[in-house]
């Protein structure tokens, strides 16, 4: 029983946590992919930027959280989301819009986003240093240990407060996005533009408005993903490309342009990652006790933790070989 709980904690909960982060990032990336038609390399640094804005707000108003009963950072998150959304729109106006109007190849747009990434990286690390920071100032991270009513269970199911907040927020965001895309005029216009940009223009849809809304959603989700990740672990300015790769893998696995695909893709990548680095030895120990001849090595994991980055990459390669349009039949574009 303990083995199962350990498995559940290490794989199911952890996998779901990292999967949710990837999903949130991937939804933003896939929307930009579908409507602006390029791979937005600066997304990871937008996540870090959002988290830093939350850090600043949390440092300025540390008493807010304890007053409400939630982490201050979480309370400040919506404000930072709005700010990040505006910054995203601003970045587009400054760096991407002109190139888009000149009809450059998508690769040039990717290069431009690399330029933006480096600028964001440089700015963030210049003003905030390269060390890790905690988003918990003046409040504590609540950890919930759930006792299971089984006799053989001496371990607890462990879930932390930020993890619960993450799941709740993701559910809320997905439902809100679903309603927006399917019930609102602007949301449908976004789907239309993703489907057929020329026809959207011909129908009179204002492409600039749709582009702006895309950046607002992408920026807000990036901020949320960065913040919730940093609440769960710590805020690391170094994250950048390490998290960009899994997010892109998730978006492509799910089918580029489809937010639901990104959601699924995020969990696929997250759970695969956790399963691959999981040390099966602990779980298989009962088997070892039962069969004395079986001698398990100390660590039996598919992939050592130092090589964790390879997993999203191989998932990506696999999907590109096997089914480039992804699970939800997005566009290869």
């Amino acid at each position: 029983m303990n083995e199962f709980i350990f498995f559940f904690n290490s794989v199911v909960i952890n996998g779901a946590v990292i999967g949710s982060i990837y999903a949130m990032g991937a939804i933003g990336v896939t929307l930009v992919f579908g409507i602006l038609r390029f791979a937005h390399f600066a997304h990871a640094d937008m996540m870090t930027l959002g988290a830093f804005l939350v850090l600043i707000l949390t440092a300025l108003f540390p008493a807010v959280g304890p007053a409400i009963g939630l982490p201050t950072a979480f309370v400040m998150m919506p404000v930072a989301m709005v700010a990040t959304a505006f910054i995203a729109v601003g970045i587009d106006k400054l760096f991407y819009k002109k190139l888009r109007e000149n009809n450059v190849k998508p690769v040039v747009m990717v290069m431009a986003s690399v330029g933006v990434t480096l600028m964001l990286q440089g700015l963030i690390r210049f003003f905030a240093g390269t060390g890790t920071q905690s988003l918990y100032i003046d409040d504590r991270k609540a950890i919930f240990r759930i006792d299971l009513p089984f006799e053989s269970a001496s371990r607890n199911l462990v879930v932390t407060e930020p993890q619960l907040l993450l799941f709740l927020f993701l559910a809320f965001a997905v439902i809100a996005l679903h309603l927006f895309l399917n019930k609102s005029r602007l949301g449908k216009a976004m789907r239309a533009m993703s489907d057929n940009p020329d026809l959207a223009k011909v129908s009179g849809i204002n492409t600039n408005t749709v582009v702006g809304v895309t950046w607002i959603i992408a920026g807000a989700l990036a901020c949320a993903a960065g913040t919730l990740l940093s609440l769960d672990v710590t805020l690391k300015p170094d994250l950048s490309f390490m998290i960009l790769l899994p997010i892109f893998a998730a978006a492509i696995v799910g089918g580029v342009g489809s937010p639901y695909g990104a959601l699924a893709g995020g969990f696929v990548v997250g759970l695969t990652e956790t399963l691959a680095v999981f040390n099966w030895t602990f779980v298989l120990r009962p088997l070892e006790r039962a069969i004395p001849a079986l001698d398990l090595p100390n660590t039996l994991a598919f992939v050592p933790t130092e090589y964790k980055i390879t997993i999203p990459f191989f998932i990506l390669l696999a999907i590109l070989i096997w089914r480039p349009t992804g699970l939800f039949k997005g566009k290869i574009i």
Partner: protein
Amino acid sequence: MQLPKKDIILFSLLAALILIVFASQGSAYSVRVLAEASCYAILALGLTIQWGYAGLFNAGIMGFVALGGFITMLFSFPTNDDFWSTDLPGQLGGVGLKALLSIAIVYGLTQLKRFGVSKKVRLPLIIIASAILYLWVVTSLGPVAEAIESEAGFIGGFGLPVWVGWLVGGAIAGGIAYFIGHICLGLRSDYLAIATLGIAEIIKAFLKNADWLTRGTLTVSPLPWPVPQAGDIGFIAARAAYLSVTAVMIAVIYFLLYRAYNAPWGRTMRAIRDNENSSAAMGKDVNRRRLEVFILGSVLMGIGGAALVTFNGIFDPSGFLPLNHTFLVWVMVILGGAGNNKGTIFGAVFIYIIWTMSEPAALFLIDMARQLGTAWFEWQPPGDLDSRALQARVFVIGLTISLVLRYAPKGLFPEKVAHHA
């Protein structure tokens, strides 16, 4: 041949810049900068043909650099007797054979389709077999690797001449490029960017953690040089000798590219670049040509990376950074003019000088700011202000990319593209 006026002005400016560096920093330092810049020029030439001829976005130059550096370390570093005198080479060879056998088995399974075995049966079979074989190889490698690390440190090198390492490094880089290109080149170019980014990180992770192969974070030094080293003939002479080697290499590469450009191969490349649809309609295999260019460019990057790492004298996997080894090269190419070899070399030297000089410049400015700040506002600067100052260079590189793309997308030496109405 008449040189256009703009070229003369730009190259004179570059010469003047080099003279300033000599005057302000001394000869030893300046020759070092030039030698490193020449290695970067080789990297940049590799990128310029990938981007300028074939429109391919390689975001993983760092990986090819690291690979070239590793191969050259492996081939040219003196042999490690602690390793060869034991039975560990045999054991390692055994693991290698197991790996080859596994690959052969998996390959054989993929060929089952010739025997009419349906995909539904084949695919799970391949996956399960791959998983089992993988675990088999990895678990047998584990103890051997640990034994190597505890008894011999690492496997050492082969003690071969340096240029062998450089060439093999280029070849292996080309091999990796074939693998990646084969999968990604038929698809969108964004996917190639993501894939190359990924492979670079993986190569780096592998080299950093395979202590039995590379000593990981303990690093390997000193690396042998193709010319006498500073200990024998002094800094300036040694570095100048190295520079002459790389300069000759650049000249040879430049000449070969020039010939290729004007040959049928080059004309096909340009036709594809200028008007892909017509070329495809004429039967030119577009993707095949792109793959050739991708491989060729990667070979150059492997060689350039090997030369760079050899020059630095130390193989340190943590020292490979996307900024320094991928995006810096990007700036060199887009500033110089993608596809224009002359412009690329100009861009490489120019940007590298600016980059190296920016480090002391940034520290100097920050120091001034710190002094003024404490004097005027009693500012308490954070302790890591110096390392933060270096982050400003990251910002500047990003800004340069954005500005060049916006205002001079064809670079300083634009490539002439024929316009067909």
